[in-house]
């Protein structure tokens, strides 16, 4: 049978043509699990007695990934060792795993992506996941969909996998969620806005164009973002180009979707079946543990396909006991529903274990109560201890009658007790042995810097941890003065990620998330919706505006922007750039300082007007000058990213009214008209507008000037009217002739602006 099966394999390979690659970012880039993660990376924390990384690898293996790059930053040697000894490195696993060590300076997923780019790791479409993923979603199907889409649309660079859940799902992070705006038909992600638990977000601003261009949109705030992305090969290079992208969602996705330069599309894959979630904080650690024990991750469950290869016996009530027969449960002990007990663990008389995970080689003393807790291997829990909703590290020794309240994290090797009481949300780690600094590895130094801080702060904290304790207490997260409340890692927001913290005192229920979605949907017809939202006074109580259009900093930004535009155009003028290049430069500037298009237009118009030299005596030379400048640079006005001719005229008027080039208004207008930068209808429209007539403005020199400009405009329109009569009369006339007349008409209207000019014009002719 051998030849047949290998032939089948070969055929399969031919079909796929290329190896499916995956990249695991095996670093969390945050410190939510401290102190559990001081001496080991987060991806090696066990969940249901198997390291997170194994769950991730299994999820990828399920999808038929053949080559996996594991990007590690902190404690890379441990990850390397783990991969080397795991069953994946054995022959026959069919998967090649390459650990990649990245620099210590990699502080964000964005940095890691740039590293991927510089190393040139990926050769085709790849799967990007985090090292803390638990999933049974058929990623290969998503890849298929992605590739299919790429065939028709080269700009579809990424597909994000999201999982539907209710708004209040235990596995859905409140602290770090997002609003997705999707096209219902193509499931293209049109807009992405991240949300936080604190400050609560009650509003999402959705760009008007999205509603205008897509008849059916879905606004969803009930997705679990699984952080499974199918990326095309250009994704790392986009990170390279945009060095300020840090987070994949908040910066990259948001950046790509809001950019009108990149013209790339991102799609969503809403997983109807399957399970996927990330262990991104202690709270999700708990909920994902429970999901695994309740078999939502099937077939990735302890009794069927345990990633670490342990064999568990599944007993009614979702109890899992190691199969090798070394677990000793005392007759009077009780093991409740949804429990997992590793091999060689002993549970003594009258001990109670309720919805908890107990590692291997643990000892649970008589009468101890373990309630909703996660106990890693090798830990000893003395008689009479009570542990509630906490995570206890490896080889911890909790001596008798110790009480550990909810939300506590106890680091590896800690000894507590006897008779100690750890208050809720306490964090303990083992006191470091004094080592000679010489043999400490770099990783240790890095990890220890924070520990040192904690240690030095010990004097100020007095908690009774019992006589035999070797623990140091981590202070509760104090709000930093320089803490940016916009950051996801802000202290209050972190409370939403904390195990056992209902955060109910933050007075947050999730009403905004649902209603705001509906609200925005109902306003679909309201074309002014976007502006409307932007103009709302954004008091912190009602809205977290992610749209930074509203503070005083913007004024500064704007003036800076004007200045930049001026400089950029001056450079362009001086160096004779092509119009296209100048336009690209302006677009980039606009992106960088995030100003509305109208500002750019104003700036460009004024820069061009300023470019025109005032020639003493005016006349032909002046007209020549205007024609030159406008024909050379005029097209730029319509290339900055949108065409709005009326606005152009208004901007011109506004600029001329407060500039010494007021006399040139008519001529410039005519020149613009001749160069097809503005059209007759637009001039008429402008002319109708109240603002252009200077109505409602307080009388001043400027207002007068505006009125003057308007009058010039009126004269021009008169000419148009006459011309149209003319052309109707002389419909048989040659084209050249009409053009001539057009020109003449333009000139005449110009000249009426200034009598001198007019005279000279006439002389000229």
């Amino acid at each position, binding site marked *: 049978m051998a030849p047949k099966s290998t032939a089948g394999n070969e055929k399969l390979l031919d079909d796929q043509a290329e190896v499916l690659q995956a990249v695991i970012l095996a670093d969390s880039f945050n410190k939510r699990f401290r102190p559990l993660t001081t001496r080991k990376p987060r991806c090696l924390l066990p969940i249901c007695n198997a390291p997170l990384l194994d769950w991730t690898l299994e999820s990828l293996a399920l999808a038929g990934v053949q080559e996996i790059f594991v990007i590690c930053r902190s404690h890379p040697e441990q990850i390397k060792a783990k991969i080397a000894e795991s069953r994946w490195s*054995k022959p*026959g*696993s*069919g998967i090649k795993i390459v650990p990649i060590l990245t620099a210590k300076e990699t502080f964000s997923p964005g940095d890691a992506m740039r590293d991927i780019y510089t190393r040139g790791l990926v050769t085709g479409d790849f799967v990007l996941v985090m090292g803390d993923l638990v999933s049974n979603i058929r990623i290969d199907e998503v890849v298929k969909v992605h590739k299919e889409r790429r065939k028709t649309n080269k700009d579809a660079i990424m597909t994000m996998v999201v999982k539907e859940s209710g708004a209040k799902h*235990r596995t859905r992070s409140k602290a770090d969620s997002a609003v997705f705006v999707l096209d219902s038909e193509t499931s293209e992600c049109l807009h992405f806005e991240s949300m936080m638990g604190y400050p609560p977000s009650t509003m999402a601003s959705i760009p008007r164009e999205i509603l205008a261009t897509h008849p059916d949109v879905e606004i969803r705030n009930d997705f679990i973002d699984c952080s499974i992305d199918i990326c095309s090969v250009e994704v790392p290079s986009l990170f390279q180009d945009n060095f300020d992208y840090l987070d994949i969602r908040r910066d990259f996705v948001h950046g790509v979707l809001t950019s009108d330069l990149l013209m790339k599309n991102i799609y969503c894959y809403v997983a109807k079946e399957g*399970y996927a979630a990330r262990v991104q904080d202690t709270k999700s650690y708990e909920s994902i543990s429970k999901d695994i024990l*309740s078999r*939502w991750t099937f077939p990735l469950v302890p009794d069927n*396909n345990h990633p670490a290869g342990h064999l568990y016996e599944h*007993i009614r009530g979702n109890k899992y006991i190691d199969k090798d027969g070394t677990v000793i449960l005392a007759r009077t002990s009780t093991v409740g529903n949804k429990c997992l007990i590793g091999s060689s663990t002993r549970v003594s008389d009258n001990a109670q274990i309720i919805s908890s995970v107990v590692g291997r080689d643990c000892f649970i003393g008589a009468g101890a109560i373990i309630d909703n807790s996660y106990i890693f291997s090798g830990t000893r829990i003395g008689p009479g201890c009570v542990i509630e909703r906490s995570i206890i590290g490896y080889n911890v020794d909790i001596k008798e009658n110790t009480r550990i309240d909810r939300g506590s994290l106890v680091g590896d090797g800690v000894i507590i007790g006897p008779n100690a009481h750890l208050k809720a949300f306490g964090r303990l780690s083992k006191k470091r042995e004094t080592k000679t600094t010489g043999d400490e590895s770099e990783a240790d130094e890095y990890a220890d810097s924070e520990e040192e801080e904690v240690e030095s702060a010990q004097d100020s904290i007095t908690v009774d941890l019992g006589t035999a304790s070797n623990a140091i207490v981590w202070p509760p997260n104090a709000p930093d003065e320089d803490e940016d409340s916009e950051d996801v890692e802000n202290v209050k927001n972190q409370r939403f990620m904390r195990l056992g913290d209902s955060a109910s005192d933050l007075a947050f229920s999730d009403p905004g998330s649902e209603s705001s979605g509906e609200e925005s949907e109902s306003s679909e017809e309201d074309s002014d919706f976007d502006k409307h939202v932007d103009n709302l006074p954004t008091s912190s109580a009602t809205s977290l505006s992610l749209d930074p259009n509203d503070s005083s900093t913007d004024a500064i930004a704007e003036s800076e922007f004007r200045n930049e535009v001026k400089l950029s155009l001056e450079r362009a003028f001086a160096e004779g750039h092509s119009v296209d290049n100048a336009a690209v430069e302006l677009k980039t500037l606009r992106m960088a300082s995030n100003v509305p298009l109208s500002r750019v237009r104003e700036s460009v118009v004024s820069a061009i007007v300023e470019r025109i030299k005032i020639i003493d005596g005016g006349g032909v030379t002046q007209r020549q000058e205007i024609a030159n400048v406008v024909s050379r640079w005029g097209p730029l006005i319509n290339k900055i990213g949108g065409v709005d001719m009326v606005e152009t005229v208004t901007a011109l008027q506004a600029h001329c009214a407060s500039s010494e080039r007021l006399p040139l208004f008519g001529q410039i207008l005519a020149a613009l008209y001749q160069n097809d930068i503005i059209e007759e209808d637009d001039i008429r429209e402008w002319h109708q507008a109240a603002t252009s007539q200077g109505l409602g403005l307080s009388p001043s020199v400027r207002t007068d000037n505006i009125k003057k400009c308007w009058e010039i405009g009126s004269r021009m329109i008169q000419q148009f009217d006459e011309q149209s009569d003319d052309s109707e009369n002389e419909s048989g006339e040659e084209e050249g002739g009409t053009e001539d007349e057009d020109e003449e008409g333009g000139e005449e209207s110009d000249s009426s602006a200034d009598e001198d000019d007019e005279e000279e014009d006439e002389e000229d002719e």
Partner: protein
Amino acid sequence: MASDPQSTANQRIVEDLVSRLRRRQLVGSRATALETLLVLRQVVSKARFSNIDQLVNVIRIVGRRLVEAQPKEHSVGNTVRKVLHHIREEYHTASERPTVQSSFSIAKFVLQGQPRKQTPIPRSETRVPLKENDPDDPDSFARVLKPVLMEAIQDVFDELETVYDNISKNAKDHIHSDEIILTLGMSRTVQSFLKSAAHYRNYTVIVAETAPSYGGREMAASLSSAGISTFLVPDSSIYALMSRVNKVILGAHAILANGGMFATSGSLLAATAARSYSTPVVVCAGQFKLTPLWNLYHEYGALDFGDPSAVLGFEEGDLVDKVDVVNPYYDYVRPELLDVFITNYGDHPPSSIYRLLKETYDDEDNEL
């Protein structure tokens, strides 16, 4: 044996099957049985051995690995047992040990009352003396035995290939005209059984939907496309309809040593309802589903629980936190509730399953 260079190739195909079993990428009794057989054939053809014990050991190691990978798919273990049984049989025939042969057959004779068509076909054409543990030529044993073994495995393979036909060939003797048959779930065996009966008889089938897998819908569509008059009913109405049903025909996931069976969830409901109306319950199953195991764990379930999402959507966020959902794949149906098993080896009452087991497998293999 594991250090053998050839065994790395073996290991790869074994591991490949193991991971597919673990990930449940391979489901269904017959499909797994076939895949297991393919792997075993490969292993036997590559294995190096100089006596029968080594060979048996190699197969057992592989078998244990596969069974551990998916203890709930009983047909894996059954196939391994069956292959071991055949190998021993061939070995005894080849080595011509009359003592073993005769004592074996007498025991069988007593046990069975009447010998089945198990009489080994005489293979006397190329009788090479079989020499175990030959120090000069350690491979000679393997060289002689291998072709015979491959043939034996091929026999098992053929049996699996033709299992549906063999089961359904007697279908017309079980289903009579104008009968109303109740079935549930999607079982290939039952499907071919009913379709083959439809060639001779005109009868009606009621198919229960079989939540949460809703295999019944597929079954109903398939039967009605074959021209059988078919009704699809919800599971809840099984009892109500039972008074009109002449016969219940079920598929099995595994037939247990006591004559009970594991079958798709809902089978117990149907069997119990049938009992209260004394409606006969007929089980159609391939012989590879015979499992030398007892149901030790749950009174009603088979210890194989699936994913709760089929019952309760994961998007019901509030409920997920508060409700424990149990979604068993299989029911355990007690032997008292069943009337007859129709296998490719003929028809058997539940009470004689133990005998069939003894015939099919060797006792020493019950625990791999």
